[in-house]
């Protein structure tokens, strides 16, 4: 497994880019990452841009944590982690990821209108694998919805993805669990925690 030590996390700023399509929960996931930083007594900044339309537009969020964080955003090639909820968006945001960075990608496909009406083609998953390999980046692709369904609640897909990410960061897992407990509705807490563990198990 990758990742720096807890102390390492304090020494330098770690950059996350979280992206997806409106309505998928990408912004909530980025809020969870920010909350984890606060819980771990790190400084944290976050910046998000919502698409103009209410649904089906691209959404993305920068999160940065460390001892002291100034700018809320970072440049291309500077993300340590990419957490993306949709396959096409993963390719779109790949330039933000640094060489040696980790991409965690949900295997969901949401067709933009240009694909729906046949004007443009949707890239297939082979492209995804090939491009991240070519860039020297680590790629973890998972079907978070399927795992969520197995857990018994389609809405906990988010926690699966967060679980995967948590495994790369050497902060105590309990910090993540505590934050989840505060962020999700109490009656869905057990399902979320199970989903989180299932995510962690995907990374050895």
């Amino acid at each position: 497994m990758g990742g720096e030590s807890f102390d390492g996390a304090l020494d330098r700023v770690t950059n996350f880019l979280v992206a997806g399509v409106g309505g998928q929960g990408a912004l909530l996931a980025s809020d969870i990452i920010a909350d984890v930083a606060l819980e771990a007594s790190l400084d944290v900044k976050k910046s998000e841009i919502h698409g103009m339309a209410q649904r089906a537009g691209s959404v993305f969020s920068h999160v940065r944590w460390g001892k002291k964080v100034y700018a809320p955003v970072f440049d291309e090639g500077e993300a340590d982690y990419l957490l993306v909820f949709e396959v096409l968006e993963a390719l779109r945001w790949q330039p933000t990821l640094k060489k040696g960075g980790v991409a965690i990608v949900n295997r969901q496909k949401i067709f933009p209108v240009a694909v729906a009406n046949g004007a443009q083609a949707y890239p297939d998953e082979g492209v995804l694998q090939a491009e991240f390999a070519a860039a020297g980046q680590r790629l973890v692709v998972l079907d978070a919805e399927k795992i969520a369904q197995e857990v018994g609640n389609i809405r906990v897909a988010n926690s699966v993805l967060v679980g995967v990410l948590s495994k790369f960061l050497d902060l105590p897992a309990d910090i993540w669990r505590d934050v989840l407990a505060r962020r999700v509705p109490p009656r869905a807490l057990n399902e979320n925690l199970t989903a989180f563990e299932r995510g962690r198990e995907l990374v050895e």
Partner: protein
Amino acid sequence: MTTKQILSGNEAIALGAYLAGATVASAYPGTPSSEILPAFFRFGGPHAEWATNEKVAYEVACGASYEGARAFAAMKHVGLNVAADPFFSSSYTGVSGGLVVVSTDDTGIYSSQNEQDNRHFARAAKVPLLDPSDSQECMEFMRIAFEVSEQFDTPVLLRTSTRISHGKGVVEYDPGSRVPVSVKGFQVDINKYVLLPAMARRRHVVVEERARKLQEYGEDSPLNRIEWGDRRLGVIASGISYQHAREALPEASFLKLGLSWPLPRRLVETFVKGVEKVVFIEEADPFLESEVKMMGLDVGSDRFIGKEAFTLLGEYSAGMIREALAKYPELGVTYEKPAAYRTSERLPDRPPVLCPGCSHRGVFYTLNRLKAVVYGDIGCYTLGVLPPLSAEHTCLCMGASITTNIGGEKAAGFAAQADTRPRVSVIGDSTFLHGGIVGLVHAAYNQTNTKILILDNRTTAMTGHQDHAATGKTLMGEPRKPVDFVKLAQACGVDDVKLLDPFDLRTFYREVKASLERPGPSVIVASYPCVFVDPRVKGRQPIFIEPEKCNNCGVCLRFGCPGVYRQDDKAVIEAAVCNGCAMCVQFCPTDAAGTQKAAKEAAGQSEGGL
């Protein structure tokens, strides 16, 4: 006891206002400012309301201030254009209770019609400008803004940009430190509050004197500070640009300005003379640069590096700052662009689209068929410009759909060659209330040939579904009598008024066409709730196209709905996306559509699975 919380800049502004004992808050929504008022109400602010437009919001806050209450108005950058009239003159009347206007620039134009730099407003109205650089400062500066306002008898402009308002960061504050709400009551003072020319002339003297005092205040105010570092390079910055610059140049010296107008002359002079080179790092216009250069400090002009090194366009970042400064060897700044890997595949764009089930879709479908010239306006419905609907041809500012059509149609009448295309104004319900009513009155009284479609989706959708005067509810959740658009249009003097359902495409087409053929002004209210605000609309069953019946004619694809696509020569509806509005299948020649539920029942399946 302090507590720490992660807050957006907007939430932090609301918190600061709450802690400052602000009493009355009024706003018209607009990205990136819209979250401020609901947050103020959540924190426990006594009164928060959606105003009909920004001028109304500003005047409501101004009146509350005249009564001695602390009050504020919030709006996006272009909102201050609308509120400019009371803003400028309130600089002359001054305040009683602290008065703050929060205006949020949209540097990078993420969701606006322009990229104006509202710092100019402060200088033009001679009002102090507070420029926070993160969430913590948003909270603190908002508190200080009320104090400055009362101390100097002036409105205060607190300005953010998208990255400040929608950025989040840690805010530390003491929940027990709230200033109690206090309202002194109106003190008659006609020399101050009645701006007749004789009074205004005297008030102008006061305004100029105040500017000098504010400059003095800035010399040792906690809002401004020098951070000495490497003396070879000194940066002057404020707002978000300070954070980018700090990130880019950790060793440099900084003059960090929180009160960015008026500038403190002695502090600036100390800083400028204390470093070898001064770099102005500011997104948008050279505002600080021009202010400092106009001071005429006794230093060579070759000491300054400003906009000749940086762009006027869009947002800055640490990387672009280093890249720009690496061109000046004397600064010792180096830059190496980080490697960024990009696929060579052409990736499909994901432009914004009208939502599945959106009531605007049928309007643009109809106008497209009618080959109309469409004077548009601002809202979700501006997306009617996109193919395949392609039926919106202007978008200037809120309310302009009606008035530009009035002028356009007049001018077209003088064209050498008759242009017979019909002209139509399309305006959302919130936009109509904001800035459309005056145009309607003008059209009615002058009997212009103006055809107005009011798209009444019962919400201010584009900015996040805020209530307005025709929704029947206030920001604080109280029920109200909604404005009746039909009666309003009639009362303004329009006789040709119709209320239509934009999902009934055949009737809608027929009625719009007929109204275009009649002379004189007309109003059609296309009324149907947005998918986000009505549970009945939200809960509809998805449509299912039976593949055996589909003949691939493509009629259902003409609506530009993200839920319909073509696969293997058949139209397919994505059940997870479809809202069941059934607009796309109204003209299906083979009757291939049913609801998902009906389709499943026909196949003997049970509901509830996925």
